[in-house]
């Protein structure tokens, strides 16, 4: 049943038409949410009594950091879908997500480093979470290099899927690293299981910025997957009708 469902709704053609239908709604709503949340967070939340105003970087850093890991997880799900059910679209999504994942990880690293200057007094610290995020960034680059090194797309997709699944082991390490090695980095302010440690005045714009950024990155993934479909399905007759 799952197989039937996936094959019915995951054909590149259906996907492409659905993307075009929903894209503007997702894009504009998330852009509005993101801008409002940023203005709210940057100008209308009180100053942190320990970190001062530098804590406002949280509204830019946390969404990127959250997505850097989530996108890898999404790639892992797509990889399993591709290897188990041979869904072509899943393979396109893997390579569509990889560069965007690398970008969000880059943003998380850079914003974290800049945040570190006024907070820790240093732009880089060999802290567990920072180091594992850097590892994640290298893994994204490795995935892209592996995929690009093969001219045969099918082979590249299969090998990249395997690497993504193996690399997914790294995600819980990143998540738990702060607790395991307990270094300079503060613990997560929002978790699924516990009450947020951040004040509600700061929390709401943070949630908004995460949702807005998630929406924008989703749009970026949709655009990039659209490009992958156009490249990979260019010989198909429906593509000519579509264009």
């Amino acid at each position: 049943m799952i197989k039937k469902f996936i094959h019915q709704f995951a054909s590149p053609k259906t996907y492409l038409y659905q993307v075009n239908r929903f894209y503007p709604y997702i894009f504009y709503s998330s852009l509005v949410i993101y801008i409002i949340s940023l203005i709210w967070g940057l100008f209308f939340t009180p100053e942190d009594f320990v970190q001062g105003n530098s804590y406002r970087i949280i509204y830019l850093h946390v969404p990127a950091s959250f997505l850097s890991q989530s996108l890898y997880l999404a790639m892992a799900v797509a990889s399993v879908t591709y290897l188990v059910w041979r869904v072509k679209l899943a393979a396109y999504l893997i390579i569509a997500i990889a560069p965007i994942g690398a970008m969000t990880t880059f943003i998380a690293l850079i914003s974290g480093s800049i945040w570190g200057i006024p907070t820790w007094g240093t732009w880089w610290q060999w802290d567990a979470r920072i180091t594992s995020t850097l590892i994640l960034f290298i893994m994204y680059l490795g995935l892209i290099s592996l995929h690009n090194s093969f001219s045969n797309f099918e082979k590249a997709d299969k090998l990249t899927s395997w690497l993504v699944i193996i690399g997914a082991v790294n995600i819980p390490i990143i998540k738990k690293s702060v607790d395991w090695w307990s270094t300079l980095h503060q613990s997560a302010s929002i978790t699924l299981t516990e009450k947020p440690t951040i004040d509600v005045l700061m929390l709401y714009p943070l949630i908004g910025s995460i949702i807005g950024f998630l929406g924008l990155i989703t749009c970026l993934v949709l655009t990039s997957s659209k490009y992958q479909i156009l490249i990979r399905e260019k010989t198909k007759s429906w593509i000519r009708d579509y264009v």
Partner: protein
Amino acid sequence: MFNFAFNSFEEAIYMNGHGIYVWIVLFIVVSCITIFFITYRKKIQKIKKKLNESN
């Protein structure tokens, strides 16, 4: 909940000396996202043009 956290707009930009860090990060985030959007749009337009020509 929606009280302006600063006394003036200049103060909001300066943020007690922390403004520079916040604005640099904002600039990086916005430019990264914009560059990616523009690049993919251009790539899509290019491939569409190619496909149209071959049609």
